[in-house]
């Protein structure tokens, strides 16, 4: 088995259809009104008040499910891709094995929740951006990408879903999201701790890792679907992020990135829609 697996090789059965972030971004349609000023301002936040709440929650749940698979694969690959000692400390790899177990449980939980909400495995396209963006060949960058950017996103998503479950009175959803959230906070903490430890005497490398994280964070703002704006379906879960070791500066940075991504996406949609109409 080779080291460093390209995203196209992630093994799936025939129920799954994988798409890339490029595929997704080339879609000129948008749930976000491209001219927010000119349209009747409508919230895209995932709350039960949305008329399409069940559909939207189901689609997001499937997104979480495939995200958990990719997180499982990413954690597993870190156990394999890097030589113990020379490239990655033994303790770091133990943590990644632990994470693989946690993510395997998250896949199990997501499958059960998918049944509960009435969706099938593979019912929605699988965006492989998480694995693609997060799985760098440098272990420190991978920690920044997977354990801080990806897991940070997971915290935001689970917080949204937990609130959704709470508001809708869905005891099952709220219970599951609460447990997964606890694990994800641990995963971010692992990332933060190892990043600090491994780059202790290498400020240059730490800087590079944080820059990489910032790029990935922006990608994970998914063209504006995560920000403080109500036009984004997900918010930023500051309280849980702080629990996981993100500083408030880091959280503000992610909030800025989210708004930037939202504005860029809106501009892009305006352009594409104008082009399509001509």
């Amino acid at each position: 088995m080779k080291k460093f697996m390209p995203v196209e090789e992630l093994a799936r059965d025939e129920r799954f259809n994988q798409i890339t972030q490029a595929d997704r971004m080339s879609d000129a349609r948008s749930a976000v009104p491209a001219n927010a000023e000119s349209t009747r301002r409508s919230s895209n936040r995932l709350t039960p008040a949305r008329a399409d709440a069940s559909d939207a929650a189901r689609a997001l749940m499937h997104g979480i499910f495939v995200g958990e698979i990719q997180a499982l694969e990413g954690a597993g690959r870190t156990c394999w891709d890097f030589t113990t000692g020379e490239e990655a400390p033994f303790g770091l790899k133990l943590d990644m094995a632990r994470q693989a177990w946690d993510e395997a449980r998250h896949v199990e939980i997501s499958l059960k929740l998918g049944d509960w909400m009435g969706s099938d495995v593979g019912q929605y396209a699988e965006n492989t951006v998480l694995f693609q963006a997060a799985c760098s060949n440098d272990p420190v960058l991978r920690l920044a990408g997977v354990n801080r950017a990806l897991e940070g996103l997971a915290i935001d998503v689970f917080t949204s879903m937990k609130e959704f479950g709470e508001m809708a009175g869905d005891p099952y959803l709220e219970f599951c999201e609460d447990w997964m959230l606890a694990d994800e906070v641990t995963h971010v903490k692992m990332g933060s701790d190892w990043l600090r430890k491994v780059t202790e005497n290498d400020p240059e490398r730490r800087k590079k890792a944080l820059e990489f994280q910032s790029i990935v964070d922006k990608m994970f703002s998914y063209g504006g679907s995560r920000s403080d704006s109500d036009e984004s379906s997900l918010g930023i879960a500051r309280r849980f992020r702080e629990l996981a070791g993100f500083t408030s500066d880091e959280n503000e940075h992610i909030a800025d990135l989210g708004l930037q991504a939202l504005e860029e996406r809106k501009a892009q949609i305006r352009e594409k829609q104008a082009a399509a109409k001509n």
Partner: protein
Amino acid sequence: MANPQKPRAPFAPWDRRELPGSFSVEETARRVGHYKWAEMKLFEALGGWIATVPELDIKMRLGTHCYKHAWHAELWHKRLPELREMNPERLTLPANDAMVRFIDAMTEPEAPELTIEKLVGVYRVFIPHFISAYTYHLNNTSEITDMPTIRSIKFILQDEFDDWREGEMLIQSLLETPEEVDRAAAHQAKLEKIMLEAGGIAGPGSIGINTPAPQGAMS
């Protein structure tokens, strides 16, 4: 207990543990170092394979089992300094070259169609050899001086048995044609031959050497 001053035997009547054991501190450290090395290779391989198997149920099992073997490696890592090896890395070694070749051959299958080979290597060859080496160690070490190793082995063996059963059932569920049965058997034989050369997880003597016992004073 009527009289707290009454002397009692320090070893209760049901405590039949024996002092002698087959392994010195040094020999125990050597074995434990091999165990750690082998458990590490196993958790790394399981972690790497997660992304290569398309079967969702197996993907999740591999992720779960990956951690258990990492935890075993950690237990052995922590045991080494207690066995006078203050630099655990020094003894974290394969038993011999054949063991290295075994791992290379076991981790060779990568393509998504090769789940049978991946599982056979782990659950029909590697893990059974862990079970046997650990069982031999458990039954031959001093029940008093080496109790910490025994305790770890007992935890670990429980995991190994559970995972072996789960892995074996996964293999059985994948084998649907006589050709697939042959495939599994051929791969098992190929790996078992390398393991034969290696002599087991801890090298020759992993499960002791079976020679006729002395016939006793009257013979």
